[in-house]
């Protein structure tokens, strides 16, 4: 089994040192592995301030981890050679949240598509370039003749975001990182953008990391899910287990707060008070101050991951009867991880 992209014990602290009062721990001891053997869709879910976007930027090599490493094909993003970096830039593509800000309003939308073609020499002639561009536009459900030659303001938000998906596809990446790709798109178009992402996964074998605050779309698209709370993993594993029978009190709160469009299911329990400002050097479970089941051990040390099911791990002392799991073995509980490697060994095979 080979690994495509890996985050290994990554911590990112903004401002000041580790014990500085003003320091913000955006992400703490986070590990994740995306395998190259099997195209997967992994969702990372969290509220604002949970470290989602920091994670995306770390995985893209746009920010340097304070501690830990991000590796692509076994090489550290921070120290890799120019050639490797170029390959990484080509193989890992990103789709950002805002389909308005990513365009330069003075250029036609063609610009975002022709630039990568030229930069990565994807086509020899103009006609070839046009053929590759047409191909990816059709793949995301856009008609090239209605899209090319227009300015960004002449396209709707949904169309612009689909052009971004097309741009990502152009380079035939192995991994697409989508950071809130549909949060600024209307409901009726959201489904089609997520649909085209899933199509990419199935038809072109591209792995997807889907970062979002929206559990409902994460559930719809992904196989495995990681729930982040203030920079730490609260619960991770098979999306069916995590969403249908959440174990961590935070996941339970999150799922019970989702307003669902149905007449049967209505909000019941009162929501727990909002989070205080997060400070560096907090010991104990970060959710303890909001948790209805918090006890004294929760305040003393952060809980490790406990493997409660074959395909799920929960960072909560309520489940301390189950075997503890080290952070870098988190992906061993992912559904599908057992299909390419023997059960249980999934997490260790990568260690150097």
């Amino acid at each position, binding site marked *: 089994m080979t690994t495509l992209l890996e985050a290994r014990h990554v911590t990112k602290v903004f401002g000041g040192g580790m014990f500085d009062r003003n320091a913000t721990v955006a992400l703490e001891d986070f590990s994740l592995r995306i395998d190259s053997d099997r195209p997967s869709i992994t969702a990372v879910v969290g509220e604002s301030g949970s470290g989602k976007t920091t994670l995306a930027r770390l995985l893209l090599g746009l920010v340097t981890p304070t501690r830990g490493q991000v590796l692509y094909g076994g090489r550290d993003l921070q120290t890799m050679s120019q050639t490797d970096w170029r390959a990484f830039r080509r193989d890992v593509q990103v789709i950002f949240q805002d389909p308005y800000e990513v365009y330069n309003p003075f250029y036609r939308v063609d610009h975002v598509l022709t630039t990568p073609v030229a930069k990565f020499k994807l086509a020899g002639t103009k006609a070839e370039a046009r053929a590759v561009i047409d191909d990816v536009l059709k793949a995301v459900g856009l008609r090239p003749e209605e899209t090319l030659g227009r300015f960004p303001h002449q396209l709707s938000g949904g169309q612009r975001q689909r052009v971004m998906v097309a741009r990502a596809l152009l380079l035939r990446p192995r991994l697409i990182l989508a950071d809130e790709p549909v949060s600024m798109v209307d409901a009726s178009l959201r489904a*089609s953008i997520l649909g085209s992402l899933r199509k990419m996964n199935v038809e072109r074998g591209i792995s997807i990391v889907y970062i979002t605050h929206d559990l409902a779309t994460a559930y719809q698209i992904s196989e495995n899910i990681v729930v982040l709370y203030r920079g730490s993993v609260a619960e991770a594993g098979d999306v069916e287990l995590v969403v249908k029978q959440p174990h961590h009190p935070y996941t339970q709160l999150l799922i019970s707060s989702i*307003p669902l469009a149905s007449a049967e299911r209505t909000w019941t329990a*009162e929501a727990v008070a909002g989070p205080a400002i997060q400070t560096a050097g907090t010991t104990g479970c970060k959710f303890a101050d909001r948790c209805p089941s918090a006890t004294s051990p929760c305040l003393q040390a952060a809980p490790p991951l406990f493997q409660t099911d074959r395909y799920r791990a929960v960072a909560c002392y309520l489940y301390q009867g189950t075997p503890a799991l080290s952070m870098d073995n988190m992906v061993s509980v992912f559904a599908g991880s057992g299909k390419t490697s023997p059960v249980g060994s999934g997490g260790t095979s990568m260690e150097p």
Partner: protein
Amino acid sequence: MKADVLRVQGLVVHYHTSLGAVKAADKISFSLKADERLGFAGESGSGKSTMALAILRMIKPPGRIEAGQVWLDGLNLMSLSEEEMRQLRLARIAMVPQGSMNSLNPVMRIKDQIADALRDHGAAMSRRQVAERVRDLLQSVGLRPEVATMFPHELSGGMKQRACIAIAISLRPKVIIADEPTSALDVVVQKQVMETLARVQKELEASVILVGHDMGLVAQFVDRLGVMYAGKLVEVSPVRDIFTKPLHPYTQMLIASLPSLEQKGTFRGIPGLPPLLRDLPPGCAFHPRCPHAVDRCQTDEPLSREVRPDSWAACHLLP
């Protein structure tokens, strides 16, 4: 049968641009009963915010209310003078704005912003009475008394939104219009803010109009739901009926496109794009995207009618 507090009849709002009139709200009619919660859902550009602003006569040029009447307890708001209307806003109809982040004054303390509204609407109160009122208001929206002396930047998004609710209810209005009150908030905070709004609505016995793009959120809160498409109100039904038996094809497709937590399915988006509001197709505005469209849909504009008790829809195909 409860009396109607607010009645909107044939409201038409156009934005006049160099490319022609943008028909942002077209012949909108509905009524709001006492202590009722009525929701309006629709995609961006469907005219929901325009409609909310038009009720308060807060449409700014190049926008203009072209026609229609808004009756509040037997008073036609369109016949009032600017000054009468200004006095009536907040006192009788209040608005919780979209993006509370940007609607508070960043250099004023919360208590001064609340007191400002009270004084402007002629409440003769001593300084101590004002302070007491501010404290009560903050308490009723679940904020600590210390918040009174804070500046907006010291508050979290959810707290700011609650401060906006406190201002909105400061003169005990009978109608509260909330335009996407939680659009930038996390789900847990969103739920808290909506619970706060629900609580103050009960206390004041006010009616609420909730405008939002999130069908799920609106559905959790309201008694009746209106669905807007291309500036028109295509359906208004009790919330239970709209999810079990939606009438208008657009409502049906919109509901089917929502991601559910119950079952994983294939994605069913609505093919095509919403029409340009300055260049609406003839007949029913939804016909180019409607799978059931017949010839008549391309020529005749369907009118809203009561298809089943308490449910109104504008579609030729309905019996």
